[in-house]
């Protein structure tokens, strides 16, 4: 089944058929999707609850911490009342959940802006960066993995192997400055920081995507090595197909299946990597906002950011699993 039509199927059929799918059973796609969503809800609830609980972890009085030394008792009391921290915990929890339901994440302590608004304005930048990193790493990883597999043990394979080993071991916060040093300072080719044109996107995306590119490349290589040995590849060659067709139309298509799962899981790790990458390149996204909020002890804003990132991560994993079941019908639980 070509992926696109399968993908459409997921979103179309439920209206017609969801109930019968529930009643009837195991390995239908709808049942899998519903089950997977059902598994996600409790996790999302736990995350929401954990994030709510965070502010109670602050040692001493969070309000005094926020205001810093030299705050008067009345100021502390006023802010505590404003944030609702003087009410019983259960009631705070209920208010918090109700707020979430209405998309209200509270008010930032520093600039008195609604937290939800600040997050909304920063969110696109983070997604843009993550998406660019994702594309960049696939563009590198797939061809590199294929070359590495067909040239197994040769110079190209060893060279690429070294690159991927470095990619896995070099953390974002070491790679970023090194890239700036090379491309911005020594060669003067790319801007150091900020967001705007495509040029400014290259370095941060490369920094963020490096780890993903390296792991994906190793996956593609391993998976291609396995596929190349399969009988159907021999058959394809025997019937006289061109090597390019055998590799790309036959082997690669099967070889990419396991790679897709890893990619999905890693898409989530790109979100997390954004904390560091955005900080290095002064990228105006959610990751940098979170760190700024934490350093400013702006607890409501930090809570909102952490919650948004966690939920986005969970959502991406959910989508990946669903996509995966579309690509490979054997996966459905």
């Amino acid at each position, binding site marked *: 089944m070509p992926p696109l039509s399968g993908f459409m199927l997921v979103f179309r059929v439920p209206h017609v058929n969801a109930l019968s799918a529930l009643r009837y059973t195991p390995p239908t796609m709808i049942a899998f999707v519903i089950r997977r969503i059902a598994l996600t809800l409790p996790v999302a609830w736990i995350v929401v609850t954990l994030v709510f609980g965070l502010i109670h972890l*602050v040692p001493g009085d969070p309000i005094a911490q926020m205001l810093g030394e030299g705050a008067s008792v009345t100021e502390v009391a006023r802010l505590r009342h404003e944030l609702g921290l003087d009410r019983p915990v259960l009631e705070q929890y209920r208010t918090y959940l109700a707020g979430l339901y209405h998309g209200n994440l509270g008010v930032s302590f520093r600039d008195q802006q609604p937290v939800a608004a600040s997050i909304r304005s920063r969110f696109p930048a983070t997604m843009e960066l993550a998406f660019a990193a994702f594309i960049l790493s696939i563009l590198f990883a797939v061809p590199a993995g294929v070359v590495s597999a067909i040239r197994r043990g040769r110079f190209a394979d060893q060279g690429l192997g070294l690159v991927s080993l*470095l990619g896995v071991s070099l953390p974002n*916060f070491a790679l970023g400055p090194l890239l700036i040093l090379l491309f911005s300072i020594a060669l003067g080719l790319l801007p150091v920081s900020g967001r705007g044109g495509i040029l400014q996107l290259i370095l941060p995306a490369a920094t963020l995507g490096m780890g993903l590119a390296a792991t994906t490349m190793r996956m593609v290589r391993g998976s291609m090595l396995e596929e190349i040995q399969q009988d159907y590849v021999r058959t394809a060659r025997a019937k006289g197909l061109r090597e390019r067709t055998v590799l790309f139309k036959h082997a690669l298509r099967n070889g990419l299946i396991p790679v897709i799962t890893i990619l999905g899981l890693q898409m989530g790790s790109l979100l997390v990597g954004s904390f560091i990458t955005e900080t290095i390149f002064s990228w105006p996204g959610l990751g940098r906002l979170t760190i700024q909020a934490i350093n400013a002890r702006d607890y409501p804003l930090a809570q909102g950011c952490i919650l948004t990132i966690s939920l986005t991560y969970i959502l991406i994993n959910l989508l990946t699993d669903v996509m995966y079941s579309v690509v490979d019908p054997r996966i459905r639980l």
Partner: protein
Amino acid sequence: MNSLFRHNKLALAGFVIATFLVVAAVLAPWLAPFNPAGQDLTKRLEGPSWQHPFGNDELGRDILSRLLMGARVSMRVGGTVVLISGITGVLIGGLAGFAGGKLDTFVTVIVINSLMAFPGILLAIALVAFLGPGLDRLIFALVIIGWVGYARLARGQVLKIKTLEFVEAARAMGATSARVFFLHVLPSIIQPVLVQASIGMATAVLAEASLSFLGLGITPPAPSWGAMLNDGRNHLFDAPHMVVFPSIALVLTVLSFNILADAFRDWLDPKSLKY
């Protein structure tokens, strides 16, 4: 051990580097040529020289000495985190798998799945952000996210092992459940746990450096590789050596522990596809 390195030069290199790092970390106070906190503003941002092979930082502190003391912090965090989370994880996961039933359902379905469902380092950032910075809190946060991996691994292994004949034989001979678990089952899962511990070491060192880089880990005067990289970031133009040397140290550490983990894995399972 001999067979571990005989056919694998890369593994040997990893082992040598890892050992070197651990020794350097232990002996750091004696090896460091200067006081890692000693400031000398006349040597501010100076590049590498005979006296200061890795140069000086923005406060004129000797980078080599700071790297050595930083290795101590990294190894201490890594070692402690691996030890505590390894023991906790293996016990919890192992017991859940061994006992089965409701306990197992609770531990795996609820606790482990929820923790695995959301990114470890984000949880660590959240915890440290609200608990405040400091070595003990950092270790606490890393243990909270770290034990889950061991628990999942141990549970899987125990589930496999508890159906084997030697376990049944032990029971038939009248051994108590505790005896079967601690003396028969646990020792058989130690090898995969070692692989996980080696990866865990690399992960913990990286996590500590990441958090310190973001200003959420070790508090400033104490040297941490992550914090050193963060300081260096502001001097990319005038003192690139501030970024280069800590990067190299970090990469070597992570690389050596990852290589060791790979080597352990191949050694334990010779059939696995070699990279």
